[in-house]
C-alpha cells in the first residue's frame, strides 16, 4: 500500500507521463521515407532563407551572350535562362517566393477552415447545414477560375494573390474538418465528456482537436503543391508575382518558349516544384501514420 501510495504521488507531481507527442516523434523517426522527405523539405526551406549566401550569382544579373546556355556551362552549373541569368541562383532565390506562395495560403486557410469546419461539425443540426451550404457555393467555381476572379478583382500583387489563394483553400479544408468532426462527435467519449458538465469549448479543446487536427493537417499539406501551381498560374497571368522576380511557376512560364531549344533547362523549375510538393506530401503521410495511435 505504501508503495502504491508513492506511485500515485509521483504520477500526480509528474507533469505528463510520457506525452502523446513524444510517442509521435518516436514513431516518426522510425519511418525512413518520412524522415528523408522531412530533410528535403527542411533543406529547401533553409535554402530559401539563406539564399543570398547559397546562391553563386546575382539572380537579376543577365547577359545576352549567356542566353539559354545549356546545363553544365562553366560558371553556370545549371545553365542560364532566356535573359542570360544564372539558373541555379534563380532557382535558389525562387524557393523564397514559391515556398511562401505555397505554404502561407494553406496555413492561413488551415487555421480558418479548421475553425469553421470544427465549429460547424461540433454544433451539428441547422448551424452545420447552413455553414456547409454557404461553403458549397465556392464549389460551383473551378479553383483556378476562382483564384483568378478574386485576384483579378483585387488587382495584381503578391498580397492579393495570397488572399485569393487563401479564399480558394478555405472551403475544401472546412469540408474535411466538418466531416472528421461530425464522425468524432458521435462517439461516446464525447458524450461522456458532455456528461461531465464541461463546456463545448473545453470539450473541443480537450477531446475533439487532438482527434481531428491530424487528418485535417495531412489534407492541408497535400494542398501546398496545388497552391504553388495556382500561384504560378496567377503569376503567368500577371496577377501574382511579376517579373523579374524569381519564382518557379513564373520561370516555368517564361521558359516555355525555350522548350524546343533547351528542354532540360526549361524543365528545371518544374523539377523544383515536383521535389517540393512530393517531399511535403510524403512528410504529411509520415506524420499521419505517426499520429495514428492504433499502430
Amino acid at each position, binding site marked *: 500500500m505504501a508503495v502504491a501510495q508513492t506511485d*500515485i504521488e509521483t504520477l500526480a507531481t509528474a507533469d505528463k507521463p510520457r506525452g502523446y507527442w513524444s510517442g509521435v516523434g518516436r514513431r516518426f523517426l522510425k519511418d525512413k521515407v518520412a524522415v528523408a522527405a522531412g530533410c528535403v523539405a527542411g533543406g529547401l526551406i533553409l535554402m530559401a532563407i539563406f539564399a543570398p549566401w547559397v546562391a553563386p550569382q546575382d539572380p537579376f544579373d543577365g547577359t545576352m551572350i549567356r542566353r539559354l546556355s545549356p546545363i553544365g556551362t562553366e560558371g553556370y552549373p545549371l545553365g542560364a535562362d532566356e535573359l542570360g541569368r544564372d539558373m541555379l541562383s534563380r532557382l535558389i532565390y525562387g524557393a523564397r517566393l514559391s515556398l511562401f506562395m505555397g505554404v502561407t495560403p494553406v496555413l492561413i486557410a488551415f487555421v480558418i477552415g479548421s475553425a469553421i469546419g470544427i465549429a460547424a461539425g461540433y454544433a451539428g443540426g441547422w448551424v452545420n447545414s447552413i455553414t456547409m451550404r454557404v461553403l458549397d457555393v465556392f464549389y460551383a467555381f473551378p479553383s483556378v477560375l476562382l483564384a483568378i476572379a478574386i485576384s483579378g478583382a483585387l488587382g495584381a500583387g503578391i498580397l492579393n494573390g495570397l488572399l485569393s489563394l487563401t479564399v480558394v483553400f478555405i472551403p475544401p479544408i472546412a469540408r474535411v474538418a466538418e466531416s472528421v468532426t461530425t464522425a468524432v462527435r458521435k462517439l461516446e467519449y464525447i458524450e*461522456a465528456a458532455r456528461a461531465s458538465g464541461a463546456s463545448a469549448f473545453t470539450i473541443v479543446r480537450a477531446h475533439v482537436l487532438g482527434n481531428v487536427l491530424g487528418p485535417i493537417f495531412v489534407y492541408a499539406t497535400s494542398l501546398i503543391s496545388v497552391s504553388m501551381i495556382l500561384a504560378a498560374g496567377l503569376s503567368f497571368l500577371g496577377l501574382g508575382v511579376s517579373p523579374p522576380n524569381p519564382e518557379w511557376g513564373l520561370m516555368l512560364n517564361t521558359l516555355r518558349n525555350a522548350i524546343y531549344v533547351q528542354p532540360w533547362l526549361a524543365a528545371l523549375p518544374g523539377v523544383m516544384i515536383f521535389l517540393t510538393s512530393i517531399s511535403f506530401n510524403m512528410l504529411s503521410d509520415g506524420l499521419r501514420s505517426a499520429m495514428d495511435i492504433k499502430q
Partner: protein
Amino acid sequence: MSDAILSAHNLVKHFNAGGWGAARKVVRAVDDVSFDVAPGETLGVVGESGCGKSTTARLLTHLLPSDRGEVRFRGRVAGTEVPLKEFRRHVQMVFQDSYASLNPRMTMLDAVAFGPTVHGVDQPEARRRAGALLERVGLDPARFGPRYPHEISGGQRQRVNIARALAFDPDVIVLDEAVSALDKSVEAQVLNLLTELRRERGLTYIFISHDLNVVRHISDRVMVMYLGEVVEIGPTADLYTAPRHPYTEALLAAMPSLDPDRRTMEAPLQGDPPNPIDPPPGCRFHTRCARAFGPCPGTAPVPALVGRRHLASCHLNTVKEAAE
C-alpha cells in the same frame, strides 16, 4: 414520492424519421415515462432492443433534451432548479462500448482526472484522485495510468469508465448496458465491483440491461419497458416470481435457465416488436399478447397499483370481465 433521489416525470422523446408537415414521421422512442429511484437503491431497466432503454438513460442524464417532461434530482428540476453542471456532478453515466467511450488520445489517468478539473479541482489534485480511483477499481495506477485505451482489455477499460464516473463523487450512476459487452467471468468481476462500490459510497444505480439474470442479481426494483413505455415496475422478487403484465411473463419465460425442468421449449413471443414509428393503438402490446381481450386494441391501459410499490399497465389487472 418526495424522498426520491432521481425521478422522471412524463418523459417524452420523439425522433424525426423523415417527412414534412402532415406526412412527418416520428419514432416514439420514449413515450410518457415516469418513475422514481430511492437513494441507495438499484433500479434495473429491461426490455427488448429498441424499446427506449438507452434513450431513457440519455434523457435521465440530460445528454438528450426531452420533448416533454422533466427529470428531478432530489425533487428539484434538472436544468432549471438544479443547474446542469451541478446536476452532472451528481448523476453520472457509464456506457456500453468501453472503447468508444474513452478518448483514444488520452491516457487512463487523464481520462479519469478530466471530470474533476472541469469542476474546478486543480490538475495535481485531480491526478492524485484519479490514481487513487484507478487503484480502487483494481487497476495499478503506475501500470495503467499512462496507458491508452487500445493498450488495455475491455474489462479494464470498463473499470476505467467506472472510475471516471466515480471521480465526480456522484450520487447516481446510470449504467447503460455497462457489462453487456464483457465476457461472463469479467462481467461477474465488474458486477462485484459495482456492488462493493454501492455499499462503500452509498451509490444509487440505474442499471440498464437486456440480461434478466444480471438485472435480477443486482437490482432492488425492476422496470420493464416495451415500445417506449413502462409496462411494469416493481420490487425484483415480486416481479420475477409474480409478474403482473403478460409482456413481463413472456420475457421471464424467455430467460435462459440452467434448470432442465424450466427449459424454454418454445418462443414465448412471436416476431419482432411493432414499428415504433406507428405503434398499435390501445395497448401497444396487444398485437403480440396471448391474453389480449376486449378493451386491449381500443383503450390504452393506465398504470395501476398491483402490490407494494408494484405498478403494471394491463387491463387484466383492472377490467373485471378479464376474470371471467
